[in-house]
């Protein structure tokens, strides 16, 4: 078990956002968290990534207690995330944004490098990620002038540039047009295999994406786990269909299943 939460509760004042959530993520799994608005999905991601300290319960990453340790410490341990609403530096170029991520990853080993070698590593690392995320031809564009889809890609690319072992993506395709959603997911799968990612956890409202790209689905409702299982079983769960998926979308999906994005293919 690479990431595990046990009986996690989180209160905001008197409002209980999470009510005893337990879940685990195994090596090579891609897990999607689905749920209606206000179910506690983003709160859960914030608790799992150490940005929020749970009111009670435990969160362990690679066996270590990571409750509330914050994003910097967690990134050093090998976990990165992206956000529901894009968090980018509006005035930096694509390349500068990725360089900033590479620099923060290399900081640990600064003393080992000569300045020249480190500059080269930063430059090459940033270009490699730009290339993986098909942003290379826009590398000199200023972030705020990118289209919504490219801003989203850049946000996710920055998380990948940290070379994490596991990544948590909060709605990676929200705000992205139908035509571009699959492209983003394909890029994510390729990039994940390339950097040897050990697990992906994503929050997703697009059911074609959630069901098409996950080994397992966890449905949240009112701060509790409503269902946890393989996509086929979740899709057949009447409670999940009523509260999360909706009748019309449950009956027909357009994307062929693409299970186990991390389980197949080579690592490198």
């Amino acid at each position: 078990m690479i990431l595990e939460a046990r009986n996690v509760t989180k209160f905001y004042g008197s409002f209980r956002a999470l009510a005893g959530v337990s879940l685990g993520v195994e090596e090579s799994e891609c897990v999607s968290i689905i749920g209606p608005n206000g179910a506690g999905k983003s709160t859960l991601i914030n608790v799992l990534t150490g940005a929020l300290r749970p009111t009670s319960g435990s969160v362990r990453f690679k066996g270590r207690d990571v409750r509330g340790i914050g994003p910097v410490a967690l990134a050093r341990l090998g976990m990165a995330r992206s956000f529901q609403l894009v968090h980018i530096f509006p005035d930096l170029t694509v390349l500068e944004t990725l360089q900033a991520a590479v620099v923060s990853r290399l900081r640990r080993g600064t003393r080992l490098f000569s300045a020249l070698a480190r500059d080269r590593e930063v430059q090459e690392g940033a270009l490699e990620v730009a290339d993986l995320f098909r942003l290379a031809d826009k590398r000199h564009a200023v972030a705020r002038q990118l289209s919504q889809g490219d801003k989203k890609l850049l946000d996710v690319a920055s998380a990948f540039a940290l070379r994490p072992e596991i990544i948590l993506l909060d709605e990676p395709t929200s705000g992205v047009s139908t035509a571009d959603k699959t492209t983003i997911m394909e890029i994510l799968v390729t990039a994940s295999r390339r950097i040897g990612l050990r697990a992906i956890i994503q929050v997703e409202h697009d059911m074609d994406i959630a069901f098409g790209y996950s080994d397992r689905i966890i449905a949240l409702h009112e701060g509790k786990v409503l269902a946890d299982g393989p996509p086929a079983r979740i899709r057949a769960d009447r409670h999940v269909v009523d509260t999360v998926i909706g009748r019309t979308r449950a009956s027909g999906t357009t994307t062929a299943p693409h299970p186990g994005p991390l389980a197949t293919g080579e690592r490198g």
Partner: protein
Amino acid sequence: MLDVTTIDVYIQASHILRRVSLEVAAREVVCLVGRNGAGKTTTLRTVMGYLRPRTGHIAFRGQEIQGRRTHEIARLGLGFAPEDGGIFPDLTVAENIEISTWTRPAGRPAAERLELAYRVFPALRRHMARKGPEMSGGERKMLSIARALALDADMLLLDEPFEGLSPAIIPAVSEGIASITELGHSILIAESNIYHIPEFAARLYVIERGEIIFAGRPGDVHADRAVMRVIGGAA
């Protein structure tokens, strides 16, 4: 009600909209569909007076409005809900919605307008006393659309109203929003997700690289393979 006729819009040196024309009649729901960066938001912002077309005309109920200031256009009865709704985080849910009845006192009684907003988003009624930081991203989106509904505008421009909403509630939200057409109002929705287009939309325009490449009924667009490829609805 709204007539946009062959407008060209530039942002700095970039030619963003190219001879864009569209019309929305009273009691109609019309959708403007396209990929990210195609020109949907620019079209809405131009109608609202944030941008000025270099050529072409925009008329609202027969009056030319291009070149007028945004607040004047809003006073004529056009309401706009931008993609990033920008709620007031220090105000409660109820106060955020009520603001519309203060900023636009004309129109139907405030109580009716608030009732409509809560009818479309019943989840908000349960959380009336909550403030911004206690709300999720999707709930904030609901709130920004509820606030737009409470404006009681003659015509609403909604930029990606369903983004971030759970698919289970989208059909109900979409029907709720469309119920304002029964009051004689009309709606123009900018949408990047082809599956969010309501079947009852009177007309659909597809925009790609700043040009309208399709105008017709929602049913007809599915038969047009080239257009469907552009907006992602078919292989």
